[in-house]
């Protein structure tokens, strides 16, 4: 019974991390109809920035997360102005391939700068464990899970309850009409990219507290992010949260009770089944 509880709690925390990882992707995908294939590598960049902040500045979790968020915000806007804005005028294929190219550029730059060796954050304040009754969880996982909830709630609120959010959504819906209303579409879309990249930076910094860091780490996590976003519904921030938690829970329970090699079969079978019933995803708007 205690083991079952441990499996469930572990799965939910893992799911929260998946949601955290996916939060930036859902914003870009949903708001701009651009698939950012470099998302996983943005997260990887956030992990390395956190690593450098700890090694060079001996920064604590709050500081290195802030550093990663701020620098990635700048990087995200730069990517929009330097790359995305231009390729958006081209065919859909060039939009897709441009972010894919960006992904490879980031990944191999990391290989070049940091080498292929794995690193981890030096022992930080979050490396302990917390006992929740009979269940043990890592402090870092708990903090990351909590931050995922906050970040998701914050992003949802920003988009649905602020003027800025309405402007971002307006540009996503109809660029021309938004311009007629006095909204500067470029500025809004750059902001969306900045926010998405900053979310990826926060995710990277927090995940780095309990995960390994390597140039290819984004690759293995990115697939899950795409599944989470499609599962939750394109552009639905709360949908990504629910989907993340659900996938984490299913993965953990199926890995424990059926076997680790079967967990992906269970997750993806369910994924296909849900999309068959609801093509727009769990919480996506009806198409």
């Amino acid at each position, binding site marked *: 019974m205690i*083991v079952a509880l*441990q*499996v469930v709690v*572990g799965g939910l925390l*893992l799911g929260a991390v998946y949601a955290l990882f996916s939060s930036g992707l859902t914003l870009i995908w949903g708001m701009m109809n651009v698939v950012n294939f470099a998302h996983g590598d943005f997260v990887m960049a956030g992990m390395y920035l956190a690593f450098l902040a700890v090694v060079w500045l001996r920064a604590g979790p709050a500081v290195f997360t802030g550093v990663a968020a701020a620098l990635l915000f700048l990087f995200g806007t730069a990517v929009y102005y330097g790359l995305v804005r231009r390729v958006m005028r081209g065919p859909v294929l060039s939009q897709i391939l441009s972010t894919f190219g960006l992904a490879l550029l980031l990944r*191999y730059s990391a*290989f070049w700068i940091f*080498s*292929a*060796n*794995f*690193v*981890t954050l030096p*022992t930080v304040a979050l490396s302990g*464990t917390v006992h929740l009754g009979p269940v*043990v*969880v*890592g402090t870092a*996982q708990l903090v990351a899970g909590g931050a995922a909830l906050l970040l998701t709630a914050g992003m949802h609120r920003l988009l649905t309850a602020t003027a800025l959010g309405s402007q971002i959504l307006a540009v996503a819906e109809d660029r021309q009409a938004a311009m007629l209303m006095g909204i500067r579409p470029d500025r809004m879309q750059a902001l969306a990219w900045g926010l998405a990249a900053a979310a990826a930076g926060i995710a990277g910094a927090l995940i780095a507290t*309990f*995960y*390994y860091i*390597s*140039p*290819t*780490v984004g690759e*293995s*996590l990115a697939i*899950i992010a795409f599944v989470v976003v499609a599962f939750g519904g394109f552009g639905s921030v709360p949908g990504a949260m629910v989907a993340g938690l659900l996938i984490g829970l299913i*993965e*953990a329970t199926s*890995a*424990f009770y059926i*076997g*680790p*090699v079967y*967990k*992906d079969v269970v997750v993806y079978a369910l994924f296909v089944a849900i999309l068959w019933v609801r093509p727009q995803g769990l919480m996506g708007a009806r198409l």
Partner: protein
Amino acid sequence: MRHRLIVSAAVAVALAVCGPLPGSGAAAPVKIGVLMPLSGNAGAAGQASKAAIEVGAQIVNEAHPDMSNIPLAATAGLPKLDGARIELIVADHQGDPSLGQSEALRLITQQHVVALLGAYQSSVTFAATTVAERNGIPWMVGDSSSPNITGRGFKWVFRTTPIGPDFAAAYSGFLKDLETMGHPVRTVAIVNENTEYGTSVGGGIHERLAKDGYNVVAQIPYNANGTDVSAQVLQLKEKQPDVVIFVSYTSDSILYMKTFKTLGYKPKVVIGDDSGFSDPSFVTTVGDLAQGAINRSAWSVGKPGSTTYHINQLYRAKTGRDLDDTSGRNMQGFLVLADAINRAGSTNPEAIRAALVATNLAPRQLMMGYKGVRFDATGQNVLAYTYLTQLVGKEWVTVWPKSAEERALAWPFQGWQP
């Protein structure tokens, strides 16, 4: 005008076809293809092995009288090929078996390599060696340890490293010796990644230990690219085995040690079957959480002044860190291959194959702790051997067998500082 263009084009083509004029001094370099995962999840291990093979080429190509017990070290180049140097053509297969096959074919048909070396992951080696076999080009396997690689009746595949059954025998012998040291163990769990390497080596260990009277309470296969290993660790926690044996790659080994700490799990004995545990990243990332872990290794730096010490110095100068077992086994594979090409006195593949078949090296001619190199009919080195090491601080020290012990075994697995 048009006529002149055609003539000059024809001249250009003719020059390109003929290539540089023959007889222009030094012997042409001998090209050896090296296939490693230079990117992807095993990128760190592949890069480390590539660096080791490059140091091997340096030892062969330059004169190193201080290592004269190693064949070809004392002289510069290959003496029987007019001092020809070895040129390495390195290709990245990213850990992908089909890419391994296409890269092997490219090296053979376009780069005209005379032999191949690689390829770390057993799954890739297993697939890519079939290309060498079909094209009649010798392939030296330095480190992939799935028994199936040499068990297929291939003529062109040779392997210097010890393989699954050798490791299984070593682990069984070690566990038996634990009993005489007053630490009897009965129950064992095997956790293995689910490609060729983990499946075959994990299965081999299971079979051997069960035959030798141990109770294998669980064998847990998993996907090495997974993002979370908690389920496996919780299963271990439930079964309570005395000994846990990991057949794992790097990222998964790191996650296991981190998850052990998070879930507060410490079995009496943790054995890592090389690979992930020997990756230089392992000690730097989770060394503090894996104190007392057991690993296998045939490499030891040795005393200052010894040949292995010199080799390690060369490797340090190149990479800034000590040579690890996996990379060392690849370097050894390269040196055995180079020696065979020299003895063949030719770059003809059949001559190289015949020289490989005739290989007979003694322990003192090797940098690794094998009992020699002699290939059986399948191409497997029958004198391959391995030691067991234990992680103490940041060093792997040899603790088994007794005859090679550098330090007494620390008991039990400590993991991390409480």
